[in-house]
């Protein structure tokens, strides 16, 4: 018999020795009472109690008192738990280990914290980390990677690298960055007006682009923009950002394979669409390069409009324009820069013979 009247038999531990002492335990409105002979009854207030086990009503009830040292009482009769609950004021919660479900408030707070943390890592942490790492990656790694990409790309694209088509681009490249290491060029037969920089100093131009542009200055502006991407190592930065993002997602989902998927994706040209932030940086580089060569930054604005006109004719706007900043905003930035620019002197790309030869060759390349 565990219950004597309103009292329950229990075992009491005083927190200094692990030996049990017999106790009688009962409840009243002001707390839990214990009598451990030969001492007089003592009271534990409800807010001092921590329930260790017994909440399920099927096992002995073990209670601890938040005291120093920690005192423990164990009542073998599971019915004691409901007696204790009934004695406690409705507003008093019995502190216990939480059962299976934690407090909703804690979960909501942690979910919010998690989302905030993930967003900060995505928005600030990853770009900062990728930029930091990109500056430390050796140029030969980038070149090797670029060679692999170019090799894969040339297997699927129709390359039209004739000297007539290449010459104006080469002239512009040599004038814009005379001190830099040689630039590689690929002209592909494609109606869509587009240009992009591959890692490892390769610039790809489409025949659609060469057809769309009206002047050598416009071509130089497009090339300067692509060289801007190269200078800032945007392709490396972008792949590092994507890799870090994959790693983060993998970490959250507990799936390490996403990192290797990210590494494979780095070999895919589809990943070469830059963010608006990178396009702005490339525009700024292009404006500075054009000015240094005595050309107006407006050439870039003109080039954009020529491309836009041609793109409307060929279909939906993709490629060179797709991820770029909104055209109006972009044109405004270029015009602002042009206003304060001092344009003087001449440059090596205004070769009308080469330009006309290229325009003539475009027709035959399309046939």
């Amino acid at each position, binding site marked *: 018999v565990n219950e004597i009247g309103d009292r329950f038999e229990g075992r009491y531990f005083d927190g200094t*020795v692990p030996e049990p002492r017999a106790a009688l335990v009962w409840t009243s409105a002001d707390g839990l009472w214990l009598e451990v002979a030969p001492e007089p009854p003592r009271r534990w207030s409800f807010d001092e109690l921590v329930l260790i086990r017994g909440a399920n009503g099927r096992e002995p009830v073990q209670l601890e008192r938040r005291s120093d040292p920690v005192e423990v009482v164990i009542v073998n009769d599971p019915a004691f738990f409901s007696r204790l609950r009934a004695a406690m004021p409705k507003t008093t919660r019995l502190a216990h280990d939480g059962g299976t479900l934690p407090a909703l408030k*804690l*979960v909501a707070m942690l979910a919010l914290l998690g989302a905030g943390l*993930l967003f900060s890592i995505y928005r600030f942490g990853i770009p900062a980390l990728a930029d930091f790492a990109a500056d430390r990656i050796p140029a030969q790694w980038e070149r090797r990677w670029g060679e692999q990409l170019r090799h894969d790309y040339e297997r699927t694209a129709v390359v039209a690298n004739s000297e007539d088509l290449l010459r104006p681009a080469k002239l512009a490249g040599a004038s814009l960055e005379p001190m830099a290491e040689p630039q590689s060029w690929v002209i592909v037969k494609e109606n869509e007006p587009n240009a992009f920089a591959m890692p490892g100093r390769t610039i790809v131009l489409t025949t659609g682009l060469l057809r769309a542009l009206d002047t050598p200055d416009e071509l130089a502006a497009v090339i300067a923009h692509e060289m801007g991407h190269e200078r800032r190592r945007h392709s490396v930065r972008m792949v590092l950002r994507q890799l870090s993002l994959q790693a983060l997602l993998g970490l959250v989902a507990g799936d390490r394979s996403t990192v290797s998927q990210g590494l494979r994706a780095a070999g895919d040209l589809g990943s070469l669409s830059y963010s608006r932030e990178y396009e702005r940086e490339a525009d700024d580089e292009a404006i500075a390069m054009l000015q240094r060569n005595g050309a107006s930054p407006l050439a870039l604005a003109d080039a954009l409009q020529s491309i836009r006109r041609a793109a409307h004719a060929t279909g939906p706007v993709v490629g060179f324009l797709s991820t770029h900043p909104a055209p109006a905003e972009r044109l405004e930035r270029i015009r602002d820069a042009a206003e304060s620019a001092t344009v003087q002197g001449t440059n090596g790309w205004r070769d009308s013979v080469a330009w006309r030869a290229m325009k003539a060759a475009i027709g035959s390349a399309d046939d």
Partner: protein
Amino acid sequence: MSDFAAPIPAAIPGDEPTSPARVALSDLSLQFVGTGSELFGIQFVNGILTIVTLGIYYPWARARELRFMIGSLQAGQDRFSFHGQGRELFLGLLRAWLIFLGPLTALWFTMYLSKPGSDVQILAGFAFYLLLLVFFSFAAVGSLRYRASRTRWRGIRFAFDGSAREFGAQYGLRLLLTIVTLGLAYPIAATWRRDYFLTHARFGSERFEFDGKASDLMRPYVLCWLLLLPTFGLSMTWFHGFQQAYYWNHTRLAGGKFSSTMTGGLWLGLAFANGVLIGITFGIGAAWALTTLQREFFNRLSLQGVDLSRVRAAASEGTATGEGAADLFDGGAFDMA
């Protein structure tokens, strides 16, 4: 209403006195009473909440699971209780990440991205594994220290006072010896580790004692090592069961001696049954497998002839009320011990 004259029971169930002499010695049998369905429920909710909170809930989940696992163990009639808080684990994990995760990630990326076979890759690989060893030393010791300090039985706290530096240096050497000998020196490393962990652990004022010797394990181990391939690794599973029983049978506390009736064959059978259970349920049965293993192991363990009157709450216990932790790793980020 109150009747103070009510009789107070004279006999206390739970401890079975073994001797009527002046010193009351007790035999305590251990028991694991947790069930697979309870653990599955906890793990299921933990899993969902960890996903919803993008992983941040993990320390709270871990604390909840530890409360269940440790709280399901009883000695005599009384359960152990674990008082660790998710908040403490979270802070410990954060510290560990800040210190170790940055360098480990950087080294891992260097290994992955550098040219295969190059000096950079070899150097980064060496540094990575060295740092990993340091990490595991701190983790093993930090985890034990944290768990012990948050675990009580009958109101008396356990404690662990090992040092990560001492453990790391000594265990690292023995681990190296194990690698160099193609695993043959494993009993030396494992027994030293057990010895270190036990002799630095206390229950209240009483220190655990251990008199196991690696030489006792050498013969069965070498035999299992030789049979590793012909038995498809099963010989090693047998050895682990044998080893666990040996270790407990050479452990003492407060004059009492632990006794385990676990055998290598039983352990092998359990491992096999658990493997099948996990396999056919596609992993869902892991909770049942774990609780079965715990139950079968602890229900065969007892502490005989222990003199509980020798045990006093350790002097430091009174002041450390839960937070403690001057040591960096006391936050208990680690749970792999």
